[in-house]
C-alpha cells in the first residue's frame, strides 16, 4: 500500500535536474532567512520571506476558499506566525517550504473553524504540533535535570554568540538580567529577549535528544 502511494507521488513530481538544483539553493536561502529571523530577529530576512511566501499564500488561499479577504487574513496570520515561531523550524526535519505550508495549514484550519462554528478554540496546534510531541515531553524538567550536563553545554555552544553570552552569564555566573545588561552594554529588553530565544532553542534541542 505504501509503495503505490510513494510511486504516484514521485511520478507527480516531474522535476528536471536544473529545477531541482534551483530548488535546493532556494531552500537553502529560505532556511537561512528563517534562522536569521529566529536567532537575530532579522527584519531584513523576514522581508525576504514575506516577499517569497506572501503572494503564493494569497494565491493558494484565494483559489481554495474563493475569497480574497479571507486569503489576506490567512497571509497576515501565517506570516505573523512565521515571525513568532521561526525558532521552531528545524532544517533537519524538513524543508522550509513544508514548514511554512504547515503553518499556513494550521492558521487556515483555525480561521475556517472560527467562521463555520464560531469556535475560537485554535485546535490546530494540537492536531498538527509544530514541535514533535516527544520533544515537547517534559522539556521543562529535562532542562532542569540536565542543566549542568555535557549535553547542555554542547547545545549552548551551538547558540549564536550573543545568546551564548547571556545564557552563560545568567545560569553559570549567576548574574541578574540587569547586571548582564550593564555588563554587555545592551538594553534590558534585549537581554530578556535573547534569553527567551536561547531557552526556547535549548528546550527544543534537548527535548529532541530523547
Amino acid at each position, binding site marked *: 500500500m505504501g509503495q503505490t502511494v510513494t510511486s504516484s507521488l514521485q511520478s507527480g513530481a516531474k522535476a528536471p535536474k536544473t529545477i531541482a538544483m534551483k*530548488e535546493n539553493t532556494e531552500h537553502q536561502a529560505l532556511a537561512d532567512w528563517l534562522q536569521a529571523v529566529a536567532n537575530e530577529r532579522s527584519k531584513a530576512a523576514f522581508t525576504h520571506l514575506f516577499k517569497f511566501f506572501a503572494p503564493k499564500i494569497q494565491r493558494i488561499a484565494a483559489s481554495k476558499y474563493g475569497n480574497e479577504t479571507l486569503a489576506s487574513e490567512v497571509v497576515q496570520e501565517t506570516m505573523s506566525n512565521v515571525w*513568532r515561531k521561526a525558532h521552531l523550524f528545524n532544517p533537519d526535519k524538513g524543508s522550509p517550504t513544508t514548514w511554512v505550508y504547515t503553518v499556513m495549514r494550521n492558521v487556515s484550519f483555525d480561521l475556517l473553524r472560527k467562521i463555520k462554528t464560531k*469556535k475560537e478554540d485554535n485546535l490546530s496546534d494540537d492536531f498538527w504540533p*509544530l514541535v514533535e510531541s516527544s520533544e515537547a515531553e517534559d522539556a521543562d524538567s529535562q532542562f532542569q535535570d540536565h542543566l549542568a550536563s555535557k549535553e547542555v553545554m554542547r547545545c549552548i555552544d551551538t547558540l549564536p554568540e550573543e545568546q551564548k553570552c547571556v545564557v552563560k552569564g545568567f545560569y553559570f555566573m549567576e548574574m541578574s538580567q540587569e547586571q548582564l545588561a550593564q555588563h554587555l552594554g545592551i538594553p534590558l529588553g534585549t537581554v530578556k529577549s535573547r534569553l527567551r530565544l536561547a531557552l526556547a532553542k535549548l528546550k527544543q534541542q534537548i527535548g529532541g535528544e530523547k
Partner: protein
Amino acid sequence: MISCHPTQEMLEKFANGELPATLAAAVSIHAEMCSECKAQIAAYTEQQAESGFNGVSSHASSANVNDEDVFAGIDIDDLIAAITATDEIDIALEDKEKTITVKGKEYVLPRALTNMTMSNWSSIGKLARSRVELGEGEIRASLLQIQPGGSVPEHTHKGFELTLLLDGSFEDDMGVYGPGDFIVLDGKHTHNPVSHEGCLCYTVSNDAQHFTQGINKLLNPFGSFIY
C-alpha cells in the same frame, strides 16, 4: 499491532487541513500511534507544499510578475512593519498531560483532545459516554467507555460511524481490535462490539437524520445514547 487505518483519502485531507475537527482529531490520534500513517501524512504534506510553493516558483519569470501583481496597491512594507513590531515569540507549548477518570479508571488523554470541552459522563449499565463539544452540527464526537464484560447492542447507522480505540480492546464478528485501531462503518454494516477487558474509545458519527426520525429513535435508543 494496529490493523485498521484511515483511508488514503482521509490521510490526504487531514494533511491539507480539510477534515472537520471531529475527524481531524481522530486521524491525529491515530497517527501518533501509527508510524506508517504518520509517514504517509508527512508525504502528503510535503507534496502539497511542493505543488503550492515550489511548483509556482519553478516557472520563474511568470511567477515573479504574478507575485508582484498579487499585492499591487498594497503597501507591503506596512504589513511587514506591523508584523515585526512585536518582539514576542511563541514558546512551544509545555507538555500539559491531561488525565480523565471514568468509573474509577484513569486514562491519559491523547494530545489532540487536551483542549476540548467535554460534557459530564452519563452511563447505562456497563457503558459510559461523554460528548465532546466541537460544534459541528450533525457530526458528533464522544468518548465511550465499555467496562469489562460490557457490550454495545447490535445497531446500524445511516451515516458513518468511526470508532477509534484509545485503550483496552473489544471484538465484534469481524475481529479483535486494540489501541490505535481506526474502525469506520457505514450504514451497510451492523455490529455488536463486546469488550472483555474493558476499553475507552473516541467515536464520531453523523447520524442526525437517523435519530431525528421519531420511530427510529424509539427503536434504537442505545444508538442515540452512544453515538
